[in-house]
């Protein structure tokens, strides 16, 4: 049993150690489960100095401070969401790489789908309109029909003398 636990801990340590990012040895927690949570959470927190990098892979001083802070909060018993709220209360939602869904971000979340729907509606209107015009031409009036008949008769008479050429 003890050997199994040891093997498990070693395997877990190997998984954690593999993508080392910018995490320095002195930051790593002794508890592998908490450390794994800290690593996952650090992937979702933006480094405010480099701005498009998570704190997990950033070498900036502030990123290091935030990594240590995240670990402290987890050790103190915070849930992942509590840690995120703690940081967002200080740095704003910008610190989260995944923007939260709320009134001010609806445009961000639903804007693309809305544009797709509008475009799709436009395309649908365009094609259905064209087909309707094609399928139902206006019927000929009596006058037009009479004229058409005259033209066809005249053509039939013209054709007769040349019948032997066929």
């Amino acid at each position, binding site marked *: 049993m003890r050997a199994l636990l040891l093997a498990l801990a070693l395997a877990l340590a190997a998984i954690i150690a593999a993508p080392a990012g910018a995490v320095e040895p002195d930051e790593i927690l002794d508890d592998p489960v908490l450390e794994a949570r800290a690593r996952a959470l650090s992937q979702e927190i933006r480094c405010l100095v480099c701005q498009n990098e998570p704190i997990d892979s950033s070498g900036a001083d*502030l990123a290091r*401070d935030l990594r240590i802070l995240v670990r402290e909060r987890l050790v103190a018993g915070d849930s992942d969401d509590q840690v995120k709220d703690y940081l967002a209360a*200080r740095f*704003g939602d*910008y610190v989260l790489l995944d923007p939260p869904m709320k009134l001010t971000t609806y445009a961000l979340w639903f804007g693309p789908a809305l544009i797709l729907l509008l475009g799709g509606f436009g395309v649908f209107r365009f094609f259905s309109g064209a087909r309707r015009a094609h399928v139902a031409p206006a019927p000929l009036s009596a006058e037009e029909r009479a004229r058409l008949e005259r033209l066809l008769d005249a053509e039939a008479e013209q054709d007769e003398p040349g019948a032997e050429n066929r």
Partner: protein
Amino acid sequence: MRRQLLYLIPAVIFGVIAGNFLWGLISDRDPREIPSVMIDQPVPEFDLEPIEGMAGPGLKSADLTGGQVTLVNFFASWCVPCRAEHPFLIELTRREDIRLVGINYKNEPEEARAWLAQLGNPYAAIGADTTGRVGIDWGVYGLPETFLIDAQGRIRYRHTGVIDAAALNKALQGIGK
């Protein structure tokens, strides 16, 4: 007539997008600047010792609710733009309606002392944030940063980067001064 109006929609959309780009080009907005969520919040709780080896009471949150408009300036000797704004801070000491206090952010005490001795000390009080934790509580992400605190001890404006007369006037306008 209705149908013809529909053809204007793409032109209108284009106009909105182009206008947005034009605004991005000509406005003096800095896209790297992160808006502060601390605006209109009371100052965070903190209690800082003075810089090691310097006389003075240090700085704590209660010092900022004294019924006076206060500028809180985060600085460090390793911060190059801090040197650039320093003459303006020295000049500010002549204004009697504004109190200037400093938070020395993650700085070796001897270097901070040497820096103040060389360039002059414009601060009525200085707290030493040796761990950077107070900076995090204020949402500081780069130096220098300057916060305007109103008489009730609420943060009313945050300026990132070198502060000058224009930036200060903009901040003061916000609280009607």
